[in-house]
């Protein structure tokens, strides 16, 4: 490997480059090393789901920042802290840490598949690993700058889910902004992502939706409720596979209101909505605690009614499928969101042979997962408990996205406001990411060859991007 010159900035992904899943990026500048995120890839299991940790000496990392609690950004953190020679400090926001604790316990259970022949533990980490590492995670407040060993960083609201942060880092006069997953839309409970007041030299930005355009939120909400209404009125069942926390709460706010307003059409309580998640129930008070980080609308509701807006009138929690009496039309929200295994998968297999039932995907579906496969409307799907047999699929399958990632226009406007000369695209499948790169290059085409030329990178995992910073910035830093 080449020796880095003193002014070289290096970016290196262990995961999440040209893919969605296992987000994990390394930054190196002036002898400082930062890791951003430590996720898993939901389409793979065990060690395969990890970022390529063997490709980097984790003992050299000074600081690890976690953007938000989703498993593709946070679920390999206990592994990094307990199973590798990582010795750095770890930071996340308060709500992220509050939810992370519950979420990963669930993750340990879901991925528990017993011990192998040689007695090797099959889990990536245990409940004990989780507990031990949890206490060593430090929290950051939004908008307050933390300095560790010459690395300064500040968290800004990213919109995406409760507690989701963008991090602006500053090392020796160079500023880097990492968006994590972000949304520029005010939805039912969260605000739009913020634009940090100080400019950035390097922007590491998500590209999930590439050059696609979202329909306006109001029309997506209308479609969602209409589709569900039409299905249950004909006696069908609706399965909404969701990630337990975050976007599920947004869907529930929509459905709860609709059910209240259309009680008569829906037979006055004859069509129940269930949420099969203990986890979500346990985390309701986290949503209440951090209501001050949400938008004005939800804060006002909370203030005026003095009740937790996340305690729903028309939605009941189900502990397990045994207590579920499946006698007529109903709406069921269940995890995991991509139907890999667990409750949502069990319900899918139960309901998919019936033509009048509906599976409605509202999240982003990663390549290689059951949710992605289902959207191809296959004639049958493999049974999870009996891999030799298949189950006919006659139910309807539809997708209406409430995934809270920017679309092209939102991303472009944000990128223009940040006005960094170096843009590194992450968190996107190769094709949408490639299209976004071309669109950005043509958008900034007039700057080509000038001092303000915008460079766009879409590296693969474990392929480094090296940027040279000479002159003004460094001189300024030296002058300080």
């Amino acid at each position, binding site marked *: 490997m080449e020796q880095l010159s003193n002014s070289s900035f290096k970016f290196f992904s262990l995961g999440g480059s040209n893919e969605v899943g296992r987000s994990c990026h390394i930054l190196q500048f002036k002898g400082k090393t930062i890791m951003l995120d430590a996720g898993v890839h939901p389409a*793979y*299991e065990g*060690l*395969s789901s990890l970022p390529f940790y*063997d490709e980097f000496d984790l003992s050299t990392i000074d600081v690890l920042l976690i953007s938000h609690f989703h498993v593709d950004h946070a679920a390999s953190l206990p592994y990094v802290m307990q*199973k590798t020679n990582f010795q750095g400090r770890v930071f996340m926001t308060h709500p992220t840490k509050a939810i992370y604790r519950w979420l990963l316990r669930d993750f340990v259970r879901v991925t528990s598949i017993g011990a192998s022949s*040689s007695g090797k533990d099959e889990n990536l980490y245990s409940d004990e690993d989780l507990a031990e590492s949890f206490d060593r995670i430090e929290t950051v407040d939004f908008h307050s700058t933390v300095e560790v060993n010459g690395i300064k960083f500040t968290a800004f609201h990213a919109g995406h889910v409760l507690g989701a942060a963008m991090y602006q880092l500053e090392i020796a006069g160079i500023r880097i902004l990492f968006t994590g997953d972000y949304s520029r839309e005010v939805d039912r409970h969260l605000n739009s992502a913020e634009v940090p007041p100080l400019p950035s030299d390097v922007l590491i930005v998500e590209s999930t939706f590439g050059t696609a355009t979202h329909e306006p939120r109001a029309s997506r909400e209308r479609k969602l409720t209409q589709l569900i209404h039409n299905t249950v009125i004909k006696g069908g069942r609706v399965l909404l596979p969701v990630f337990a926390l975050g976007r599920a709460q947004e869907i529930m706010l929509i459905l709860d209101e609709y059910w209240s307003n259309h009680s008569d059409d829906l037979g006055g309580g004859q069509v129940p909505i269930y949420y099969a998640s203990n986890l979500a129930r346990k985390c309701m008070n986290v949503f209440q605690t951090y209501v001050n980080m949400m938008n004005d609308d939800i804060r006002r509701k909370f203030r005026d009614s003095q009740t937790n807006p996340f305690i729903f009138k028309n939605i009941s929690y189900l502990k397990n499928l045994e207590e579920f009496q499946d006698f007529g039309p109903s709406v069921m929200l269940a995890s995991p969101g991509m139907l890999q295994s667990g409750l949502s998968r069990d319900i899918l297999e139960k309901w998919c042979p019936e033509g009048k039932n509906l599976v409605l995907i509202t999240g982003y579906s990663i390549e290689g997962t059951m949710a992605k496969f289902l959207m191809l409307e296959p004639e049958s799907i493999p049974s999870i408990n009996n891999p030799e047999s298949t189950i006919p699929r006659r139910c309807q399958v539809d997708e209406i996205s409430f995934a809270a990632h920017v679309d092209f226009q939102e991303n472009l406007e944000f990128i223009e406001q940040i006005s960094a000369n170096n843009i590194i695209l992450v968190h996107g499948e190769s094709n949408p990411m490639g299209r976004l790169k071309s669109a950005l290059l043509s958008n900034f085409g007039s700057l080509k060859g000038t001092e303000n030329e915008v460079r766009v990178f879409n590296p693969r995992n474990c392929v480094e991007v090296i940027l040279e910073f000479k002159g003004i910035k460094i001189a300024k830093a030296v002058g300080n």
Partner: protein
Amino acid sequence: MSSTIFYRFRSQRDTNRILFDGTGLTVFDLKREIIHENKLGDGTHFQLRLYNPDTNDEYDDDSQVIPRSSSVVARRSPAVRAFSANGGGMSKGSSASLGNAARYVTGKPRVLQKKQ
């Protein structure tokens, strides 16, 4: 009585072991065992390399025998396409590092093809 080969993933603290009968395992079989033991899947999404922990030399010959009681370092990295964008083919020295780990799962040892 069964034999043991110790292995450690490069980023891991702990050492694991593969149990087998006999005096040694070929690199091919050892990789297959490690993939199987760790449920790494069909091998198409990654490549697996093994190294001598003392010399850091890669065991790049699938037929080489690793004697029992040895220790090796394993390294999981992204799969790469056999031919790079600049038109370069497989170079002999690094051929074991190219491609992915699928052959260790399907059980078909790699046959080095002569240049045509």
